[in-house]
């Protein structure tokens, strides 16, 4: 993982070697302005999405949910576009608050719809989320096309890291805090995942735990969407693989989820940056391809063990 991060730091449009880094003022500057922020953004966004996936999956008791399959990311994007329409020059912090709030609303809408679905473990659940997400996405696209914002929207949807420079990625430290908060409260999420009755018996307020977890995920999703854009399927693939290998204890799994998410993200970014060099395929597009395949494999693999 450290090697991957080092590699990510070393690869880029501007040629930086250890030699030039040490002796060339301009190379060093480039390193700190672009390469470091980009890599940090990758690490933080990956951790945020991986952890969001874990939390959603235990709380919903379904293995296929994560911010892009519950519609949360799409709601966050709606918030950003909506804000750009009514208040174009809004500062980043306002945009993040609005995006996070709408992600929260979207997740709560999703949970509300889920109450009417009886088969919680089935593949129907993420389909509900994807459907809700598409509806919201359509509204967003309509809003954007009506206001000449389509280009901005397209660049988010593909979640690029290429324009991340110093001064743009810093808000992502917030999601670092969310990851720490999830780790501290991890046992509550695992217990909530055992159902309302077991949680109540163990002295927890189930609804409160679900709301707290949802709010944390919404914050992570909102901030990530504002800074980076969509990071699809990461929160699905990594937690599922970790769960298959290590079980479902959130606290024990969290470090692994973070490490594996970062590793996968960095690899996807490196692949995106190198295959068509000097152009770039956004990391999220690579991730989407990898993730969609993995999603199908997971659905097929888990099918045998799906019970009501």
């Amino acid at each position, binding site marked *: 993982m450290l090697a991957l991060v080092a590699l990510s730091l070393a690869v880029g449009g501007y040629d930086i070697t250890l030699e030039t880094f040490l002796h060339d003022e301009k190379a060093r500057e480039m390193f700190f302005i672009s390469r470091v922020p980009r890599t940090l953004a990758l690490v933080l966004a990956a951790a945020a999405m991986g952890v969001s996936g874990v939390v959603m999956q235990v709380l919903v008791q379904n293995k296929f949910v994560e911010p892009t399959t519950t519609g949360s990311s799409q709601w966050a994007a709606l918030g950003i576009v909506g804000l750009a329409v009514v208040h174009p020059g809004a500062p980043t912090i306002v945009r993040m608050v609005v995006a996070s709030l709408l992600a929260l609303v979207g997740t709560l809408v999703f949970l509300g719809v889920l109450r009417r679905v009886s088969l*919680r473990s089935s593949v129907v659940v993420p389909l509900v989320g994807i459907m809700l997400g598409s509806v919201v996405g359509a509204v967003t696209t309509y809003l954007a096309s009506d206001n000449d914002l389509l280009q901005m929207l397209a660049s988010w949807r593909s979640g690029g890291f290429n324009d991340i420079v110093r001064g743009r990625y810093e808000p992502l430290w917030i999601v670092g805090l969310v990851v720490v908060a999830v780790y501290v409260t991890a046992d509550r999420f695992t217990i909530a995942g*055992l159902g309302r*009755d*077991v949680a109540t*018996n*163990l*002295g927890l307020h189930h609804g409160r735990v679900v709301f707290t977890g949802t709010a944390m995920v919404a914050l992570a999703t909102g901030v990530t969407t504002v800074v980076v854009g969509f990071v699809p399927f990461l929160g699905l693939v990594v937690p599922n693989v970790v*769960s298959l290998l290590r*079980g*479902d204890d959130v606290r024990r799994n969290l470090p692994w989820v973070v490490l594996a998410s970062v590793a996968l993200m960095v690899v996807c970014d490196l692949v995106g940056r190198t295959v068509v060099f000097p152009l770039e395929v956004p990391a999220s597009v690579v991730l989407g391809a990898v993730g969609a395949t993995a999603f199908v494999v997971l659905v097929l693999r888990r099918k045998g063990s799906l019970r009501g």
Partner: protein
Amino acid sequence: MITVDAVTKAYGDTPVLGPVSEVLADRGITSVIGPNGAGKSTLLTIAGRLAEPDSGTVHVHVDDAAGAVGLDVHRARSADVAKLVAVLRQENHFTARLTVRELVSFGRFPHSRGRLTPTDVAAVDEALGFLDLTALQGRHLDELSGGQRQRAYVAMVLAQGTRHVLLDEPLNNLDIRHAVRMMRLLRRVADELGRAVALVVHDVNFAAAWSDRIVAVRDGRVVAQGTPEEVVREDVLREVFDTPVRVHVLDGVPTAVYFR
């Protein structure tokens, strides 16, 4: 002691329970019997605060330096009640892939809030040993049979270390051998650990053989209660189950015969 005071519950317009007033003692085994749909689970889950009553209250009494203090299980802090009353529902749907040991360790959550002390670890070990799960402790729940999983959940509520343990049909899913073992074990929990166990039992004869007290429920009311000798009688059971029943005393235990 748990006191259930004039508790009622209705689903929509259909009253399904009460008013019921009952006292669950601090020791021994109390079995709740009755036909399907009588309201046994409703009574137990309300007493265990998994469901709210429409009216009435449930208090758990703790001995305190100042004497007995009553805690309203539905109003008091959930974290406090969790140290006094543990309750397990009949069916536990789950999707979590936890090991048996991880599940049982969560029984200590009310005490440890997640950071297990040596006392907590000892309680987990004891509960695992009691339920004969030590050899299975590393297995994931989805790799167990229904009966083994049932035992893992019972171990979790035992590890919770509460005075009162409420179990809804813990013999469900168990074959004769494991059902007998479960009852023998609950007997030891009551006798050796000095805890009070209340359970819903389907089979009248299991109730008669192992309980100190039996509560018979029908149509949401308690229609009979007392020692096995007082409740497992032909006239009482006929009224409770609406079925002719013969009772013979076998090995000193009143035994119901109702197969034809």
